[in-house]
């Protein structure tokens, strides 16, 4: 990931399109600890859980203004916050689920996402990759638009 980061940092005049295409060309990917849940309404988990969280995927895209309704929630958490977040999910009647059927995805954040310099760039890049990984038609169309 350090090598990937250095290559990204060498780019200039980055916009979302250039950053996204460059990230796609890089083979390296972080390995996440991820838990998948099926929950009746992810918003109830969001109201119930009190700790810090970082949204990505469909729910972040919806907030950014993409024309979609988020069904699958991808949330990054600090390692120590995973346990209370899981408890909050269970309190709101979530069940463990296969990745294909999950609508609440809790992921432990990698330290590389919290670099003191250029964390905005790293987080933006991660969010773009998560948009791509969501396989959502609207997001895919926007990302591939020239």
């Amino acid at each position, binding site marked *: 990931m350090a090598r990937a980061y250095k290559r990204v940092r060498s780019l200039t005049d980055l916009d979302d399109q250039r950053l996204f295409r460059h990230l796609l060309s890089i083979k390296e990917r972080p390995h996440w600890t991820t838990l998948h849940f099926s929950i*009746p309404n992810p918003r*109830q988990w969001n109201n*119930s859980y009190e700790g810090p969280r970082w949204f990505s995927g469909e729910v972040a895209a919806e907030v950014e203004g993409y024309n979609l309704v988020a069904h699958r929630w991808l949330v990054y958490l600090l390692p120590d916050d995973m346990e209370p977040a899981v408890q909050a999910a269970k309190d709101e*009647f979530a*069940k463990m689920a296969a990745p294909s059927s999950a609508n609440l995805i809790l992921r432990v954040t990698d330290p590389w996402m919290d670099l003191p310099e250029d964390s905005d760039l790293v987080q933006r890049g991660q969010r773009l990759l998560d948009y791509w990984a969501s396989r959502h038609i609207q997001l895919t169309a926007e990302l591939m638009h020239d």
Partner: protein
Amino acid sequence: MIGGWAVYEQVDPLVAQQSRDVDLIIHDKNTLWAFNSQLPHWGLQWRRKGRNTFNDCHLIGGDPMKIFVDIFKASDFKESLLGGSRVPKQSLVKAPPTLDWLPDVDFLVKEKLKTIPRRQRDVEEKRLKDFIDVYNLTFYNKQDKSARELAEANPDGREMALQYLDAARHQDNASRGGLYQVQLDRIEAWLRA
């Protein structure tokens, strides 16, 4: 409009159309035909089963979702809410804690859970709808009430309603091929919490 309309107003728009009961109070049959003419894509059909007449409102040429419409004529009204007319007692929301004139989610969930055991045997379709209303109010309410909070407020109602869940599943399988299986599974977990 009362009854199912209140559920419609209190749940997320994404699921609101599943609250399919609509109670209309009309003054005469001319009002009924006026209602039909204003909704050209819906057809009002009458269905009789035993002593009861059910008024089904079908969307023509589109989603096969149905809306049950109970139409009360002015001549059937008992007490006045509208200046001299009479309202069938069972259609009234009785002294609810309200947000202005809209019953809040706590009240609606409690009342729906009370309704489930009271349904007659020949209205299993309505009992299925009641379970779906409880599901939508519990998990998709606009007042940000948590499902856990609503469960803790209704221990007795949940226990009573649970006894009728199998009948609702049977109705769902028989009439819809299990369309609401996921919702009924989730509401079962909530009833058993």
